[in-house]
């Protein structure tokens, strides 16, 4: 029972990280009708930019003056700005040039861009510990110390076995908050509604008078910010970020988005959770299952694509002739 409970928590946490990346996919796909495959890499870039910003700001001695929450906020802001810029770059160099070509071109170009992002990160940072994970873990005291020394153990809040820690709650909380914020944004604001309109009918949206270009650019900015926060959570959850994790999160996020239904943002949540549950439970309950968890997750994906390509909660589209 305790095992089951622990594994469910694990699955939810993993699902949160997948979901955030998957939402990036859905957002881009919805508005631009392209698969922006470097979404995972943008998220990892976000995590690294937090780390880079941290290192620079810490060496300037800024964190010793500021309270913990403000510091975290500043770091997130920096990462968001950087990721939003990267989102714009992605749009400019990997999506826009291919607006009128075969849909597969932007897929390939974003894969290529993902490789470039990943390799540049690898060259600049190699693998480094995410200091924020430690900072969050130690309640801020360790903020001034870069990786290595004495982060305190997590305070145990609700605990059958110490699995639910403060950080895990933060991760789940932030994810829920982001989802709620996104929901409100999409349904209550003009920009959000325009994004929905564009995702449903681009030509019509232009006809209505929506400045499609502006909204598309905004989408990439918003997607970038979302992915930056996603990267932050991924890094905090894993306590480490690897430059090459972007590909993994990209593939899993894409898979999750497809399983849920590519053009449906809420599908991303379902898909992300489903994928995470499959992985965790294969890993946790089948002897020597870890080796096969990803394989089985991929088999699930293939199954979905072949037999239910519209995804779990996507709407079936009829081939337009």
């Amino acid at each position: 029972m305790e095992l089951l409970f622990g594994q469910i928590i694990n699955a939810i946490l993993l699902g949160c990280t997948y979901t955030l990346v998957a939402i990036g996919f859905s957002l881009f796909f919805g508005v631009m009708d392209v698969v922006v495959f470097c979404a995972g890499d943008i998220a990892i870039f976000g995590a690294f930019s937090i780390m880079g910003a941290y290192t620079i700001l810490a060496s300037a001695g800024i964190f010793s003056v500021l309270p913990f929450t403000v510091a975290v906020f500043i770091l997130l802001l920096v990462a968001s700005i950087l990721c939003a810029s990267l989102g714009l770059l992605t749009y400019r160099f990997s999506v826009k040039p291919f607006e009128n070509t075969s849909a597969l071109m932007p897929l390939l170009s974003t894969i290529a861009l993902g490789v470039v992002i990943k390799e540049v990160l690898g060259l600049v940072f190699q693998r480094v510990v995410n200091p924020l994970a430690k900072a969050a873990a130690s309640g801020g005291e360790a903020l001034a110390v870069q990786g290595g020394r004495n982060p305190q153990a997590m305070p145990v809040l609700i605990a059958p076995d110490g699995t639910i820690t403060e950080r895990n709650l933060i991760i789940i909380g932030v994810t829920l908050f982001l989802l709620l914020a996104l929901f409100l944004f999409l349904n209550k604001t003009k920009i959000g509604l325009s994004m929905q309109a564009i995702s449903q009918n681009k030509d019509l949206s232009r006809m209505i008078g929506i400045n499609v270009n502006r909204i598309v650019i905004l989408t990439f900015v918003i997607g970038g910010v979302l992915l930056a926060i996603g990267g932050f959570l991924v890094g905090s959850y894993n306590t480490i970020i690897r430059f090459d994790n972007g590909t993994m999160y990209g593939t899993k996020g894409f898979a999750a988005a497809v399983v849920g239904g590519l053009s449906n943002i809420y599908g991303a949540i379902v898909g992300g959770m489903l994928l995470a549950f499959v992985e965790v439970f294969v890993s946790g309950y089948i002897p020597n299952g870890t080796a096969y968890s990803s394989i089985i997750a991929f088999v699930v994906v293939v199954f979905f694509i072949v037999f239910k390509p519209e995804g779990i909660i996507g709407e079936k589209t009829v081939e337009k002739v």
Partner: protein
Amino acid sequence: MTQKTLEISNISTRYGQIPMLMNVSLEIRKGHIACVLGANGAGKTTLLKTILGMVKADTGSIKLNGESIDHLPTHKRVEKGIAMAAAAFGTLHKMTVEKNLKMGAYYINDNKLLNERLEQVYQSFPILKERLNQKAGTLSGGERTMLTIARAVINKPTLLMLDEPSLGLAPIMVEEVFRVIKKLNEKDNMTILLVEQNAQKALDVSHYGYVIQKGQIVFKGEPDELRSSEYVENPVAG
């Protein structure tokens, strides 16, 4: 003095290497309905798209109320008061009818005004009022056409452009659509550019007509002149 709502002179556009419009000129007086007749592929929709700025013109100029709008992007032209309704472009199928209408009123920020306009639209299009909370994707063809027109009208545009409103509709619906068009023109004094294949019906409501063939205006005149011309007597098969 008769005001010209729209003045187009010598517009040419291309699709890739293929010319779509060649030196097209036309004008619409304020409060008039002008129709453009032509077969499939004659360039009617391209013409409307060019007016709206969705297709770039190579040469020529477009003036709205005497003011050049050549340099404006589509959304600015919409802001200036050009609205286009085209059933072929579909609706926002995942949104409700009400939301579709609200999206049509994209530039109206005043909630009171918006509600007022919505009420007016419901009066003109009673059929939609029954369907307010239904998703647009589930509407019938006629209802969808009405929705597209209603969505364009809600802004009270200076120029309303209708792209083949009778396309694919049952005869009874066609009647209804043209009745609405006439009413919009007469009651709300709306200037309308109507693009049609259904020449007879279109000419019945129009004040002036153009015939477009292979991207060129080949004939223009009063409805009666058009009726008696070779172009309409032998209606171009769709």
